[in-house]
């Protein structure tokens, strides 16, 4: 029938591949993909590769020597100590703060959340500066501390304080949205069935938030070990005493000891890579139990 063919004719016109109305022509897609990948390779991948290439420039022997030299070992130890104090401190704070914010409704809650996020919007240098203003020699408590014989700035306590400040929001920021979304029905049920507050927390809340908790601690730790600006202001740069790994990298680099600088830097880069791998694994495996991967 002539009438029939006139109706079906437009439908049977073959659409060239890649010319769908909802996507771009193949050559545009290829161009955009190549452009994005080139940009990422140039800006992200190349610096990462450069760290390892420069570190191994003089061979593995020089690399190993740079890492086992006493000042480097002291810097590695100090970094671990600072992280070992500041990460648990912020872990405790994060859990307590998110219990308070997520399980109760009270006035000023949004203000509290904003204040918890505040350290993220402060320059690292200012994060160090504020503690120098408080505890430094000419600071508010400077003369008092000197009389007491306590040193905070240019010593380990200052490094810990500055690190706690810059990593302050990590755990709380991951847990608050997660616990808000989970609500408190399960906790209420446990309490009604006769569990104590502690039992409820350990047996109901913690199992629910454990992956989110790990995620927050992971990011917190990466920042704590890698922080540079804030600790640089409060450290005083005493070799072997108040130098964390990033500060040690700076000193070596400024002394034109590039192989050693990049050797220590490569340890930090490996930490970053491990962090990325674990983070990605957590997102793939437990994406539905993490707040961060949902928004």
């Amino acid at each position, binding site marked *: 029938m002539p009438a029939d063919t006139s109706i079906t004719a437009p439908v049977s016109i073959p659409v060239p591949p890649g010319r769908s*109305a*909802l996507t*771009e022509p193949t050559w545009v897609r290829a161009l*955009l*993909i190549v452009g*994005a*990948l080139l940009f990422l390779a*140039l*800006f*992200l*991948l*190349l610096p990462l590769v450069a*760290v390892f290439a*420069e570190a191994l420039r003089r061979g593995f022997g020089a690399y190993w020597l740079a890492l086992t030299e006493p000042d480097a070992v002291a810097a590695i130890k100090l970094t671990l100590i600072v992280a070992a104090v500041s990460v648990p401190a912020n872990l405790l*704070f994060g859990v*307590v*703060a998110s*219990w*308070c914010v997520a*399980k109760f*409704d*009270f*006035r000023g809650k949004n203000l509290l959340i904003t204040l*918890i996020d505040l*350290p993220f*919007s402060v*320059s*690292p*240098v*200012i994060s160090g*500066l*504020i503690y120098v*203003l*408080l505890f*430094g020699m*000419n*600071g508010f408590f400077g003369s008092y501390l000197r009389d007491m014989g306590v040193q905070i700035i240019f010593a380990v306590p200052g490094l810990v*304080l500055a690190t*706690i*400040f810059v990593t302050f929001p990590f755990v709380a920021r991951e847990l608050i949205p997660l616990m808000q979304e989970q609500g408190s029905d399960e*906790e209420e049920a446990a309490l*009604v069935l006769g569990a104590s507050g502690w039992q409820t927390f350990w047996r109901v809340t913690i199992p629910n938030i454990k992956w989110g908790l790990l995620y927050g601690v992971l*990011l917190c730790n*990466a920042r704590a070990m*890698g922080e*540079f*600006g804030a600790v*640089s*202001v409060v450290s005083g740069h005493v070799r072997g005493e108040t130098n964390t790994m*990033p*500060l040690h990298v700076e000193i070596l680099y400024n002394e034109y000891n*590039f192989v050693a*600088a*990049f050797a220590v*830097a490569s340890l*930090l880069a490996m*930490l970053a*890579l491990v*962090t*990325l791998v674990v983070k990605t694994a957590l997102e793939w495996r437990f994406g539905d139990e993490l707040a961060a991967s949902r928004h």
Partner: protein
Amino acid sequence: MVAAADSDGALAGKGGAVTVRAPVPLFRKPSVLPGFGLTLGFTLSYLGFIVLVPLAALIFRSSGLGWSGFWSAVTTPRVLAAFEVSFGLSFAAALTNAIFGFLVAWVLVRYDFPGKRLVDALVDLPFALPTAVAGIALSALYAPNGWLGKPLNELFGMKVAFTPLGIAIALTFIGLPFVVRTVQPILQDLPAEEEEAAASLGASRFQTFRSVILPAILPALVTGFALSFARGVGEYGSVIFIAGNMPGLTEILPLLIVIKLEQYDYAGAAAVGTAMLGVSFVMLLILNLLQQWMRSRHAR
């Protein structure tokens, strides 16, 4: 609990005076869960000791200079030049990131290619890589004898390290994930129906992009831009190695604060820090308003 009662009383008083107000709710809704007083008390004291008191010290210290002292401390030619360097180059870097970050987010959401998940994970590298490591790596790459610095210099006569361009590159590195990670989820959730409707009404793919996709993405793009910009202004570790740090030319604000501290000019350092926080705050406020305006324009 004392604090709760206090604030209830104060608020009830206000409510009574205005009379338009609905019945004043309690300071907090009742709950069977324990630990409100304990957790709120701990949260507020920890927040106070670590964040609020030290930040107050910064404001207090710079207010000790008096208004004229503060003004003359932050308007010396060197400080003004550092303001220009920090804010100008952060702006340029954030703009670069808005363009390329959008491209990366688009490619990751819309297209399939081998290794996509790996690339997606790599985008977070600047969050995870310590800034000092990024700093020396970029500096080594773009130095006159570096992998990229040498060809750029020989082929185009371009100098990157120790120039403002080098600073912009470091700030681009640092800010990229902010744009990608804010645009990506919005792009992911964009309903396909709108694009289908545009296409069925005869719009070309480019028209659909310009009048359907872009307006929906723009607020997220501006947020990403703002985050990247704010991060750039405060950034220290990745910049100082590649910057060259010449006063007036490639000296950034955070470095100037460090220099003032090393000279024991605490008040001067506090003044520059306060001014920096103030200017960042005003710019973020403007960007927020701009974003709200775009949202309301886009909402139908």
